[in-house]
């Protein structure tokens, strides 16, 4: 960060009234601290509203419970935590290798004439509304997955329990694929930036020793960028865990623990999206908000860790990237 001149007008001679300055400073301060207040308010409200559920069932029992039954008034979060983690894990498995290779291509290999528009196109995916991607997922992607990848896995590797069928199209796997599309731009954009910030002396030294372009990238550039790329992946994971609409539309929304990656499932976010409005009893609403609190804690911690990693790697003390 650049040093700026001493802030404020402390050294200005008094000239006329200074109340407009005070008013302006006060108003803008109010606006800035409103941001902090909103964050604290959100966290406090989620905590307060989930207390009844945690008190009724106990924190550990709520988190590990596998039954969610409004009729019996038993609420356990495990199926949704599992659905959230599994769908995000699938997304990471698909997106990470593609994203890192793409970032390498854009930062190291592609001529600028190609790199610039390609970067733009990939980042454009992040701008498409989640519900629009979900619409495409429901009517185009899931039928496609059902007859291609899913039926191939089920008929060839169906004996392995996690690949067992039937191929439904809609389910965990489809959610993972949709999420991988949605987090790809995040991982690519940040990895690319981190790779580009590796000092050129690293590359020159390696090339000077007679290494090929790939050896240079692999042995001199990537080790330098490793922690930043790791941060990019975690930021992507944070996005995947909290993503709501597209996942809700393709995951099938089944309240059971999934056995296979083709099973229908439900994430924390999609559970809240589909049932919050129908929750009539206080304890059900409270349990849903408790789910939300779990999600908030996970995503916030991941985001903080990821930002620290990225900021460290790209040598900036404040990362302003999304």
């Amino acid at each position, binding site marked *: 960060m650049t040093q700026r001149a001493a802030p404020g007008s402390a050294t200005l001679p008094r000239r006329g009234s200074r109340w407009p300055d005070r008013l302006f400073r006060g108003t803008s301060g109010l606006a800035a601290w409103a941001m902090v207040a909103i964050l604290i308010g959100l966290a406090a409200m989620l905590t307060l509203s989930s207390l009844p559920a945690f008190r009724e069932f106990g924190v550990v029992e709520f988190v590990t419970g596998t039954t969610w039954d409004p009729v019996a008034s038993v609420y356990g979060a495990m199926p949704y935590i599992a659905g959230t983690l599994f769908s995000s894990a699938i997304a990471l498995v698909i997106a990470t290798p593609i994203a890192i290779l793409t970032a390498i291509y*854009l930062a190291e290999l592609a001529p600028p004439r190609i790199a610039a528009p390609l970067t733009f196109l990939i980042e454009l995916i992040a701008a498409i509304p989640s519900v629009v991607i979900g619409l495409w997922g429901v009517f185009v992607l899931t039928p496609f997955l059902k007859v291609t990848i899913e039926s191939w896995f089920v008929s060839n590797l169906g004996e392995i329990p996690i690949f067992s069928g039937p191929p439904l199209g809609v389910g965990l796997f489809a959610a993972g694929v949709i999420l991988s599309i949605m987090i790809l731009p995040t991982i690519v954009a940040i990895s690319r930036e981190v790779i580009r910030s590796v000092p050129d002396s690293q590359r020159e030294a390696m090339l000077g020793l007679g290494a090929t372009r790939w050896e240079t990238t692999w042995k001199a550039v990537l080790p330098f960028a490793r922690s930043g790329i790791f941060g990019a992946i975690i930021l992507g994971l944070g996005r995947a865990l909290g993503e709501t609409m597209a996942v809700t539309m393709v995951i099938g929304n089944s309240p059971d623990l999934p056995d296979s990656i083709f099973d229908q499932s439900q994430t924390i976010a999609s559970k809240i999206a589909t049932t919050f409005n129908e929750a009539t009893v206080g304890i059900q609403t409270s349990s849903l908000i408790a789910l939300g609190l779990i999600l908030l804690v996970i995503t916030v911690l991941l985001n903080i860790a990821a930002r620290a990693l990225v900021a460290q790697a790209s040598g900036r003390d404040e990362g302003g990237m999304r």
Partner: protein
Amino acid sequence: MSAAATPVVSGRLLRRTAADRRRAIVDRTMRTLCLIAAILGVIPLTAIIAYIVVNGIQALTVDFVTKPPTASGVNGGALNAILGTIQMVGLASIIAIPVGVLGGVFVHEFSDRRSARVIRFSADVFVGVPSILIGIFAFTILVLPFKQYNAFAGAVALAFLMIPVIMRSTEEILRLVPGSLREASLALGVPMWRTVASVILRTGLPGILTGVMLAVARAAGETAPLLFTALGSRLVNVGDFSKPMDALPLFIYNNARQPFEILNKQAWGAALVLLIFVLTVNILVRARTWRRRPS
């Protein structure tokens, strides 16, 4: 690809060994893999846009943008959703732009280092909060007390999403405004508030607008914060923020779940309208920033 694909060590002076050949093959393979990955990365975007355009264009009729929906979908449109999005995003902007811009000004111009860090940190954390939780928050503070789903709560939820984005981008832009401008203005005896308003903000205006437009585009496409606040409605609601209101994303979500093809078609149409808006904003904004920083 450049001609550098041949191994670097194969000069006239060095003999090419089997190991060199292997290294050259690895080099070429991995570089090709990178290219393939990049192409793979663009395929979903192309596929999504192509399907939305092809399916959406059939639903885009005059009725679609001038009529409210009908129960069967026949002769119905999306007027309620289009007007709802305009109103809610408009109100959200009215709330979020002053708060975001002033907040950014405060962090850059007035605050001490520690406060700046706290505020910046809050904004960054808030950007990462899943939007569905922001919906729950707005529901609790603005729907529960009134026992009525209302468009105002929806607009506030959208404003919450926009504020940190606008605040952070404003601050980033203000950093680029040369300090000499500020000093010159202050040295002329211009009070701080006028310096900020007519020198600093004026200089940073194009950049701040960029951030605002991106935030507006993002808010227009958000569904999750509206589910428990504005709720959605089949009626055209103009100006009554105390009642439920529809929005294009809600319209897409609800119509995509219906078992009738005609309603699904309308979802595609609404998706196309939304996509055109969001992509136009993004492309315009990128084109601007490109011209300014050709890197």
